C-alpha cells in the first residue's frame, strides 16, 4: 500500500503588515508498487512512433529497436497498443478496426507487436494532433483502463494548421499522461514541451539514434513503476486569501497555478498524475490579510489526495512577529527553488532571444542563468550552459555567446531548462 508523507519548509514569521507566505512542500511516496497492479484500476500503455518521411533509415531503424525495447519493459497483463504517426495516425497493434483498441500484454502479443513495429517505414508528413487523438480514442475503447500513459517519439516540426495541435492537447489533458522525445535536431522544443507539460510528462532530446533504445527502456520502466494513479495536489487557503502560485519545483519546474479545479470554495485541486516511489517538491505562495504581531494563523493546507481520500497533509503557517531576526530570514529551500524557477525562465527566454537575433537580451538572460545555476548548485545546467556561452565570471553572470553552437547542445539546454536539483544538505 502506497504511503505519502508531506513535509513543509518555510519561514512562518512575517513582519508587521506582511502578507505573503512562501513554502516548499516535499511530498514523498513509498510502496507505490507496479502500474495497474495495486487495485486502483488497470494500466494502459501506448507507444507512438513518428513514421513520417523525414525519419531517415538510420533513425527509423533506431526507433524500431527502441519501441521493441520499450515493449519488453511493459509488465505482462498491462493493456497496450502501438501507434504509427505521420500526416495521419494508424493503429499498428493490435490489428483491429473496431472494438477494444488495446491488447493484453503477454509473450504472444509482445511478439506480434514487435513484428508490427519491424514493418515501420517512413512516409508522409507530421500531424501530431491526429496521433494524440487516436491515442485518446484507443484508451477510451477499454474502460477498465484508468491509468493511461503514452510515450511519443517525433523527429520533425508539426505541420498542421495553427491551433490543431493545441486543440488535441486540450482534449488529451487530464485523460492520459505522455512522455515525449525528440530525435535529432529538426523538431521544435517549445512545441513538444507544450505536449509534455500539459500531459504531465517529460521532454528530452535524443541527439544520436544509438541513445534511443536506452531512453525508451527508461521511460517505460519509469511508467511501469508508477503504481499510484491520478494523485491530486490540493491547496486550501483561508477565506479572503489569494493563492499566488502553485508550482512543482522538483524534479522539474511545472507551473500548476492555472490548472486549478475547484474542490470546494477554499480548496483547489491540481493534477499530478501517477506516482512511483519518488519525491516531488512544490512551491506554494499565498497572500493572506495581515494580522497583529503575535497572532498565528494557517496560510495553507497542502494535501495529497487519491480520489476523495486525503493521504498526506502539510501545514503552511503565518506568525506575525516584531523580531526582525525572525522575519528577515528566507527559508533555504524557498530561496533555492525560487532561484531554480528563475533559472528555467532565464534559459528559455535567453534561448528565445538568441533565436530571434536579440544578442543583448540573450547575453543578459543566459548570464543570469549561469549565475543562478552556480548559486543553486545546478551543475547539469552549468555544464549545458557552457556549451552555449563562454563564461567570463560565474559569480557576476558575465558571459559571451559562443560564435558557433551545435544545435543539439542548444536544444539539450532548452529541454533540460526545467530540470532542477535538490538543495545540497
Amino acid at each position: 500500500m502506497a504511503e505519502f508523507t508531506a513535509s513543509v519548509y518555510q519561514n512562518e514569521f512575517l513582519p508587521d503588515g506582511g502578507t505573503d507566505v512562501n513554502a516548499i512542500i516535499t511530498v514523498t511516496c513509498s510502496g507505490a508498487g507496479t502500474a495497474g497492479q495495486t487495485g486502483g484500476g488497470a494500466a494502459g500503455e501506448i507507444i507512438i512512433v513518428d513514421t513520417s518521411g523525414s525519419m531517415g533509415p538510420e533513425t527509423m531503424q533506431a526507433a524500431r529497436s527502441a519501441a521493441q525495447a520499450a515493449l519488453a519493459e511493459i509488465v505482462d497483463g498491462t493493456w497496450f497498443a502501438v501507434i504509427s504517426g505521420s500526416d495521419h495516425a494508424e493503429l499498428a497493434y493490435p490489428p483491429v478496426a473496431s472494438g477494444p483498441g488495446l491488447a493484453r500484454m503477454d509473450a504472444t502479443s509482445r511478439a506480434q507487436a514487435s513484428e508490427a513495429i519491424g514493418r515501420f517505414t517512413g512516409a508522409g508528413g507530421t500531424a501530431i494532433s491526429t496521433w494524440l487523438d487516436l491515442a485518446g480514442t484507443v484508451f477510451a475503447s477499454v474502460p477498465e483502463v484508468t491509468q493511461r500513459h503514452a510515450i511519443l517519439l517525433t523527429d520533425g516540426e508539426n505541420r498542421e494548421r495553427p491551433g490543431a495541435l493545441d486543440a488535441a492537447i486540450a482534449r488529451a489533458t487530464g485523460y492520459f499522461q505522455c512522455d515525449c522525445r525528440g530525435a535529432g535536431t529538426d523538431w521544435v522544443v517549445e512545441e513538444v514541451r507544450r505536449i509534455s507539460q500539459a500531459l504531465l510528462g517529460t521532454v528530452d532530446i535524443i541527439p544520436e539514434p544509438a541513445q534511443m533504445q536506452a531512453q525508451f527502456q527508461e521511460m517505460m520502466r519509469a511508467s511501469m513503476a508508477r503504481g499510484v494513479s491520478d494523485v491530486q495536489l490540493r491547496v486550501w487557503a483561508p477565506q479572503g486569501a489569494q493563492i499566488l502560485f502553485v508550482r512543482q519545483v522538483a524534479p522539474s519546474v511545472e507551473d500548476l497555478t492555472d490548472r486549478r479545479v475547484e474542490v470546494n470554495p477554499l480548496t483547489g485541486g491540481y493534477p499530478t498524475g501517477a506516482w512511483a516511489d519518488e519525491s516531488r517538491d512544490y512551491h506554494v505562495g499565498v497572500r493572506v490579510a495581515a494580522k497583529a504581531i503575535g497572532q498565528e494563523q494557517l496560510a495553507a493546507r497542502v494535501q495529497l489526495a487519491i480520489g476523495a481520500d486525503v493521504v498526506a497533509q502539510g501545514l503552511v503557517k503565518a506568525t506575525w512577529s516584531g523580531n526582525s531576526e525572525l522575519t528577515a530570514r528566507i527559508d533555504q529551500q524557498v530561496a533555492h527553488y525560487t532561484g531554480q524557477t528563475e533559472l528555467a525562465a532565464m534559459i528559455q527566454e535567453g534561448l528565445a532571444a538568441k533565436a530571434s537575433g536579440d544578442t543583448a537580451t540573450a547575453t543578459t538572460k543566459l548570464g543570469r542563468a549561469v549565475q543562478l545555476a552556480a548559486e543553486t548548485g545546478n551543475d547539469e545546467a552549468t555544464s549545458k550552459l557552457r556549451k552555449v556561452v563562454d563564461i567570463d565570471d560565474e559569480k557576476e553572470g558575465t558571459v559571451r555567446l559562443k560564435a558557433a553552437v551545435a544545435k543539439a547542445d542548444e536544444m539539450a539546454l532548452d529541454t533540460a531548462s526545467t530540470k532542477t536539483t535538490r538543495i545540497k544538505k
Partner: protein
Amino acid sequence: MSETPSPTTTCPSCGAAAPTGAKFCESCGTPLGGDAGPVAAAPAATEASPIDDLGSGPISAPTHRNLAAPAADAGPRPCLVCQGTVGADGYCETCGAKAPTERDHFRGTPAPWVAGVCDRGIVHHRNEDAMALLASDAPGERAVLVVLDGVSNSIDSDVASLAGAKAALEALRAPFPRGMGTPASRSSAVTQALGAAAAAANAAVVSVTDPASTNPASATFVVVVVEQGLLAYANIGDSRAYWLPDGGPAVQLTVDDSAAQQQMEAGVPREVAETSPQAHAITKWLGRDAPDIAPRTGQLEVAGPGWLLVCSDGLWNYASEPEALAAQVAAAGTAVPLDLALALIAFANAQGGRDNITAAVARIEPAATVPDPGQNASEPALDHQEESDG
C-alpha cells in the same frame, strides 16, 4: 500528580491516552492536570457538602453547576474568530485562525447576567490566569466570580491557578451564613467565609505543587460574591474588582498587595507607581511560600444598576483608573455580559496583550430583584424562575 502510579492517563473529553503529568490532552486540548486530580484532592471540595446542607436560608442554593471550565462533552468548539469549523489540525477550516487550547482561552456564562473570559493574550506562551464562575438563574440573586493570576516565573502556575480558582468557587458555593441576624454578625460571617475561600484556594495551589519544586507555583486571588444587593470581595495580590455603576462614579473595590500600591500609599501618583519597574511586584500571594494568606476583604451594598468587573492585571494594565475602565465598558456598548467580557479582552489584546487577560462581569440590577428581606414569600417565585429556566 507525582504520586499517580499509572504511566498513562485518559482524557475525560476525547478518550485519548496521555502521559501521566500531561497538563493538556494532545488530541483535543482539554486540561488534564488542573482538572481531575488536584481539584478532587483539594480539601475545600470535600467540605462543600456539609456546608450545602446548612444552606437552607431564604436564598435557595443554585441548582446548576455550571463551572467556568467548558463542559467536557462539548466537542471541538467553533472558531473563536469566524465561528467556522475547527479542523483536526487545530486551525479553522474557514479563516485559518489557530484555535487556542481550552486552557489558553475559555469562557463561562453560568447565567445570562454573569460571564467571563480568560485568555492567553498575545505575548505570553501559555495562560496562567484562571477563572471560576457560578450564578443563580435569577438575576442579581447570587453569583461568585473568582480570578487567579498565576505568577509567570513560578513553575506550573497555570495548573495551580485553575485548581485554586475552582477550589475557591466550591468553598463559596453555599450562600453566606446569616450569623446571628444582626448586620455586624453577618458581616463578620461573610469575612470569615471569604477567608475560608482564600484558604481553600491556597490549599489547592499547594496540593498541585511538586513538593520538590524550588520555585513553587504562586498566584494572586480575587473573589466577589454577589448576594442580592451585597458585593462581598476579597483579594490577595494585584488582581482586582471594580464596581462600575451606570452613570458613575466608578470605584476600585479591592486594594492591591503590590509595590505600586505601597508607593501610592506613600504619595506617588498612580500613573507613576504603576509604570515603575517594580510596579508588578506583589507583596502577597497564594502558594507554598506564601507569607500570609489572609485576604483583604470588604463589602459594598449597591442600590442602583451597574457592572461588577473582576479582572487580572492583563486588563487593568491598559486601563487602571476606574473611570478608564468604565469608559471601555461604555465603549463596548453592549448589555450582554459575555459580549462585554469579550470586548474587554479584545481591548487588552489590541493594546498589545502583553499579559494573560481575564475579565469576569456581572450585570447588577438591584431594584428589579431585591426582595423584602423579611419575607419568605419570594421563595415560590424563585423556584418558579428556576424551573422555567431549567
